């Protein structure tokens, strides 16, 4: 299957993310961020984020195959699909961490994302051997935040992540859920417009998963757009406004979440939800 099943590609390309979790209009988002000067925010705007027929080859095969995807501000998009479908590579393309072998990735028409416009949370948090607070202040330092402002901003982020009481604890001594919330707080340090999460709760128990999802919803309610790579259909139901389904490196459908879980448009999506293998 080479084309998305639910809607024509051109229609999908223009579709903004919107819905219950992050249903804010694009124009309202900048105004919801009092700490961000408007000019600076505009200069860092990555919209639209586009992948135009991008392919990535790994081991002699196309792990991502002529994929076209467009992200506009607002909402949560869940990127779903079986192992090896190309979800994590797609996330890395959207973050600008890898370059496509074919096709083009652009952010507001530019070939690289604006500095600080895209935040990334990986499955493994990869925290530095510093305190919880130190991990966030270091992220702020890398983002170029003035030294005097770092501590207050970091404490505000830790408060949002429910980690104030762990600020001085070594980051690597935190529980799995706390570590992932810290990774989220760290990714938010430079106030990104787009947040990309790669299986953020894959190693967490249900309670820790609920905490991370609550934090994600809160962040999105403040105007951040999110893309979540997940295997967890329950998580996609809980947090996503739309679902994009990948199979063998190709986008088979991009559908509003309710519609996807009620009537998946592609045979691959249907098979996945029914727990069947479709090779």
């Amino acid at each position, binding site marked *: 299957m080479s084309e998305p099943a639910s809607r024509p590609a051109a229609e999908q390309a223009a579709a903004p993310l919107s819905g219950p979790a992050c249903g804010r209009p694009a124009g309202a988002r900048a105004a919801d961020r009092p700490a961000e000067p408007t000019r600076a925010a505009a200069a860092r705007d990555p919209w639209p984020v586009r992948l135009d027929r991008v392919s990535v080859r790994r081991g002699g095969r196309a792990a991502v195959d002529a994929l076209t995807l467009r992200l506009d501000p607002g909402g949560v998009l869940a990127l779903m699909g079986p192992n090896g479908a190309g979800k994590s590579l797609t996330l*890395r393309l959207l973050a600008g961490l890898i370059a496509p072998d074919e096709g083009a990735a652009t952010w507001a028409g530019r070939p690289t994302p604006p*500095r600080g416009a895209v935040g990334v949370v990986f499955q493994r948090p990869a925290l530095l051997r*510093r305190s919880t607070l130190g991990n966030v202040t270091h992220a702020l330092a*890398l983002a170029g935040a003035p030294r005097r402002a770092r501590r207050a901003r970091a404490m505000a982020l830790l408060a949002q992540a429910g980690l104030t009481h762990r600020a001085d604890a070594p980051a690597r001594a935190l529980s799995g859920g706390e570590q992932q919330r810290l990774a989220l707080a*760290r990714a938010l340090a430079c106030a990104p417009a787009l947040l990309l999460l790669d299986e953020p709760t894959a190693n967490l128990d249900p309670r820790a998963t609920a905490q991370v999802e609550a934090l994600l919803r809160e962040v999105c309610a403040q105007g951040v757009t999110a893309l979540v790579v997940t295997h967890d259909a329950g998580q996609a139901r809980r947090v996503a406004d739309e679902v994009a389904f990948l199979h063998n490196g190709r986008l088979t459908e991009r559908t509003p979440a309710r519609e996807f879980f009620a009537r998946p448009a592609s045979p691959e999506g249907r098979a996945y939800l029914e727990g069947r293998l479709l090779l």
Partner: protein
Amino acid sequence: MQEFTDAFGAAFALLASGDPELAEIVGLSLRVTLTAVAISCLVGMPLGALLAIARFPGRGAAAALLNALMGLPPVVVGLATYLLLSRSGPLGALGLLYTPAAMIIAQTILTLPLVAALTRQTIADLHAEHDETLRALGAGRWATALTLLHDGRFALTTAALAGFGRAAAEVGAVMIVGGNIAHATRVMTTAIALETARGELALALGLGMILLGISAAVNLAAMALRARAERAAHV
């Protein structure tokens, strides 16, 4: 076995006598070695980190060369340094030959590749873990290198201690460029070589035991500091 027993006696007698010449030799040994190791760490650690992080043509060859330089023969380094610093050499005008500075230069040349190569390996492992996260946070190469050097600070004490071990035990290079001049460039290893040449084997072995003790003390102190810092950082 008699020599070993005598050596213990000689070492104990030297220490108990509070011999000022011994103190002078030990002091110079530590000054030369620690200075060389400090310079090697200041230069070799950032160099090793950048080599671990940067991607450029010939990077593999550069890493292989660095590893090969870990096995530099001290006598060859001593000879090359001698030729550089001798009156007819390019740096002869500095008048450094047969001074502690010449010994520091030779020991730095010996220890720098070791420190840089061990740092490269440590940072390469950390880079594999943190690369994408740091790039996503906007870190460039220098920022990544400095971040990972800080993150690997405990593991890197091993690189510094390896450099100290190589420098403290080295005799060939410092003998050539220092000349083993009493009260000027005589260090523990050259003193041991001198006593061996004189046939004072017990005294030479005794000096060797003192050198071993100093080396062990420095290593223990470094490990204790590392353990304390690790406990404070809970890593």
